[in-house]
């Protein structure tokens, strides 16, 4: 037994030594160093759908670049390092550490969720590595520090867009059911309540994505008979919620946040999805030049799906980083950060974008999309509250 133990310990030491050596600095190809951009997205876990669309969006840009990037008059090979955050805060923080310390990326795009970004952003800020979240809409994200940016609108804006839409449609009363364990859901609910001109009759809540039974809360809300039901929740919850809402007798307009922009929501909700409206950052039906180019390139790479907001915003985030690298005064993290803050009138699929250097939030509009009877989303209107 002792002998076996000794051999095992020796083997363990050898393995550890070898792995430490293997983790050495990455090879330099001659004198041209590879520029690395980190992509931190959930490839597994509950949020894996969003992660899939996000990386597919980044694929479009990868195709565009073709593995190299021209800065000034020199050409550098460019590499995208994709790491799985599993949709959890601790894993995202670990991924950020790895990308910054080991892979030595020049900037990070992702993750897409507010709570994961809030957990990992302090690491990027302390290491002075610029990080852009594709879809983290909670206000607190960019407040972490001046190295943290975002590619999407913020929750107060989203809540205001939803509220403006409801007011515009003449809905005088509203009810809300939200997830009190998620920063996104809470933020969106607060923003809506603040901006809504009508009356909020009742607010119900539930504790997290584990819960799949909303019948009790929805039955209570149905008794109030509102004009509109707000469901500012995550895509894995919305499908069942919409279905149960209709069964509970809520036949009013349902409005959701941007997370409704996944086809799986329509699949799970079935015929109940008809008429559900949501706030979106991007419409695949947009007739804009840049948007069409993006959609066509996406469909060429992935013929079975249409890009959604996740894909488009990730594309934008990475495009912003690439533009910043090309326009940076110095080719390092600080230079990229300054260039990001100075983006003005960059042509992106969702329109021309300007970065607000004070808040590091992009200035852009929001649109309302609506599901029709076949579960396909249709563009309704653009809202600038």
């Amino acid at each position: 037994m002792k002998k076996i133990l000794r051999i095992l310990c020796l083997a363990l030491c050898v393995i550890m030594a070898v792995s430490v050596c293997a983790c050495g600095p990455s090879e330099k190809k001659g004198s041209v160093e590879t520029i690395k951009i980190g992509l931190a997205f959930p490839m597994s876990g509950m949020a894996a759908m969003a992660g899939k669309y996000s990386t597919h969006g980044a694929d479009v840009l990868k195709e565009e670049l073709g593995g190299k990037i021209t800065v000034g008059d020199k050409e550098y090979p460019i590499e995208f390092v994709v790491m799985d955050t599993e949709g959890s805060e601790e894993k995202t923080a670990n991924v950020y550490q790895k990308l910054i310390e080991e892979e030595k990326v020049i900037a990070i795009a992702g993750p897409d969720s507010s709570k994961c970004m809030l957990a990992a952003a302090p690491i990027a800020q302390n290491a002075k590595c610029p990080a852009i979240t594709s879809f983290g809409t909670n206000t607190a994200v960019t407040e972490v520090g001046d190295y943290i940016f975002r590619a999407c609108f913020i929750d107060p804006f989203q809540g205001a867009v939803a509220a403006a839409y409801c007011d515009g449609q003449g809905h005088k009363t509203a009810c809300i059911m939200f997830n009190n364990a998620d920063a996104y859901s809470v933020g969106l609910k607060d923003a809506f309540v603040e901006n809504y001109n009508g009356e909020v009759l009742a607010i119900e809540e539930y504790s997290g994505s584990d819960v799949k039974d909303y019948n009790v809360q929805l039955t209570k809300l149905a008794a109030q008979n509102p004009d509109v039901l707000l469901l500012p929740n995550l895509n894995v919850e919305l499908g069942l919620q919409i279905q149960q809402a209709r069964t509970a007798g809520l036949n009013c307009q349902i409005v959701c946040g941007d997370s409704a922009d996944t086809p799986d929501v329509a699949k799970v909700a079935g015929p109940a999805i008809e008429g559900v409206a949501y706030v979106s950052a991007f419409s695949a039906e947009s007739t804009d030049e840049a948007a069409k180019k993006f959609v066509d390139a996406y469909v060429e790479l992935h013929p079975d799906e249409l890009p959604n907001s996740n894909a488009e915003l990730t594309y934008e985030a990475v495009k912003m980083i690439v533009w910043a690298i090309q326009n940076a005064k110095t080719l390092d993290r600080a230079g990229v950060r300054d260039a990001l803050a100075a983006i003005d009138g960059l042509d992106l699929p969702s329109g021309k974008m300007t970065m607000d250097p004070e808040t590091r939030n992009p200035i852009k509009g929001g649109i309302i999309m609506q599901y029709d009877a076949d579960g396909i989303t249709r563009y309704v209107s653009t809202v600038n509250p």
Partner: protein
Amino acid sequence: MSFCPPAHLFIFTGMEAIALATILQYLVYGLQLGSVYALLALGYTMVYGIVGMINTAHGDFLMIGALGTYFIAKLFDSMSIDGTYPMLAVGCIILIATVMTGGIAVGVEAIAYRPLRNKPRMIALITAVGVSMFLTNFPRALPFIGPNPRPFPTLFTPKTFNVLGASITSTQIIMIVLAAVTMLALDRLVAKTKIGAQMRAVSMDKDAASLMGINIDKVISITFFIGGALAAVSGICYASVYPQVEVYMGSWLGNMSFVSAVLGGIGDIRGAMLGGFILGIAQIFATAINSTFGYAVGFIILIVILLVKPAGIMGKVTIEKV
């Protein structure tokens, strides 16, 4: 003229009727949830009673049953009219899914648990955790399954009935009746049949039973098969009412059904039934009071029962003779 009863009496009975309707509605939801927990808890309780181990991977058998039904239903897609399937097809789908899950359960037992039968219980528990992780993540790694939630096919066409103000769908009725019938059938099986007698013998004393000529391996395999099959039925019931299936659906339900089994008295079949329904109804009513309370009530019940009556409601405290 004065034949009309006083107005305030009408209002009073009106309000009472509304309150009764809401309570009945909650009761329906509670029974619906309770039948899922009860069916799943039966598997837990049977395995514990006969093998002496807590199979924490049991919730994942439910997930396999539900996901399996989704894919099997796809095979029968040609028979479906407008999204619903003819009764014969539904019967076939459920049968195939149940047998498949039972088979997987037997396989899991043979590979993971049988070699550890004579080892300390802690090892089997840890192995169960590993099995659970494998059963969750292996389907996730397969490209045609993946982590995405999927809509469950409509096996039973829902017709809504209105009973005293509460609405109950035919799906819910089928669920509750199916659960009750299955549990009665299991009770019969264990009490009256030869294999049931063998199962009871093994649960009393494994070694003595094998000395009596009972094939322990066969009995345990049959136990796991029945447990897996019940989990599949439970999964189909659950997915019929909450039609979203994904690889992670088993863990939460597994935890709750474990609490039900403990509540009712782990090792006792009737206890599992009782515990399941009590927990389901308690959760619904607790959510009606406060949603966070509803989330926590399962765990509160577990703590309370372990403090007050650790053997469970129907369990008997056995004194281990050393």
